[in-house]
């Protein structure tokens, strides 16, 4: 799979709806004890991003093939809060891909949209893979 990657390749769409218990598990894992005050019923935006990135990584066979991978950078912008249980559609684009002496560098750009088609968040992930 990795050898066939090309810049411009599309991934998804991924449909995600994180209910309150899943959101709570994320906040408990990160240790954000006061989150209920700040996030109210909104899903943590990074949890959406992490979910999509995990699906993307799985789709590439990285976990199954136990390929050493380093997450080198991450960008995210939030435009609107997403309530727990709301379905979000995420679409990813392989923005750039290069092979540097056998080490693969990939930048994925992901857009998250609500049911009305409005962009609620955008992200960019830089992943280094050493197959």
């Amino acid at each position, binding site marked *: 799979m990795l050898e066939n990657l090309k810049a411009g390749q599309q991934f998804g769409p991924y449909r995600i709806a994180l209910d309150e218990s899943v959101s709570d598990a994320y906040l408990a894992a990160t240790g954000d004890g006061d989150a209920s005050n700040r996030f109210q019923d909104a899903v943590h935006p990074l949890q959406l991003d992490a979910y999509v990135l995990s699906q993307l*990584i799985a789709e590439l066979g990285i976990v199954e093939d136990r390929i050493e991978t380093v997450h080198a950078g991450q960008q995210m912008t939030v435009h609107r809060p997403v309530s727990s249980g709301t379905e979000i559609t995420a679409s990813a684009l392989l923005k750039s891909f290069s092979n540097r002496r056998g080490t693969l560098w990939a930048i994925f750009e992901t857009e998250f949209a609500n049911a009305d088609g409005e962009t609620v968040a955008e992200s960019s992930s830089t992943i280094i893979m050493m197959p």
Partner: protein
Amino acid sequence: MTTPRKKGDNLTGFRRIVTQERVTAYAHASGDHNPIHLDADFASTTRFGQRIAHGMLSLAFVWEMIAANYPTAWHRGAMVKTRFTSPVIPGEEVEVSGSVKRIRTVDDREFAECEVSVTRPNGEKALSGSASAPLD
């Protein structure tokens, strides 16, 4: 908590211990089950020689700091842009910090542009970068 709204203001940060239990819980909550975070045998064969925490966990700490310092408007235009420069090893206590570098106006909205970091006990930056939060 006073909102940091001028150049030089420090954000209220915090320290947090990143235990392997936290890393494992994060893997389940995020769906990221990469063995480099969970499998000690596999991790021993990597360049790090041991399990490492998810970079996104460190980023979640930064987001927590931004949301705490700018609680009213983080969800309408906040941005983070970071590099993961050194892995956090389970058991380490990290320091999450930030400061305002400048105030920028975009479309009549003011944003605090901040420098943010997560620092390991040995002084290395696990994460460094910038964040921007609306001051509405």
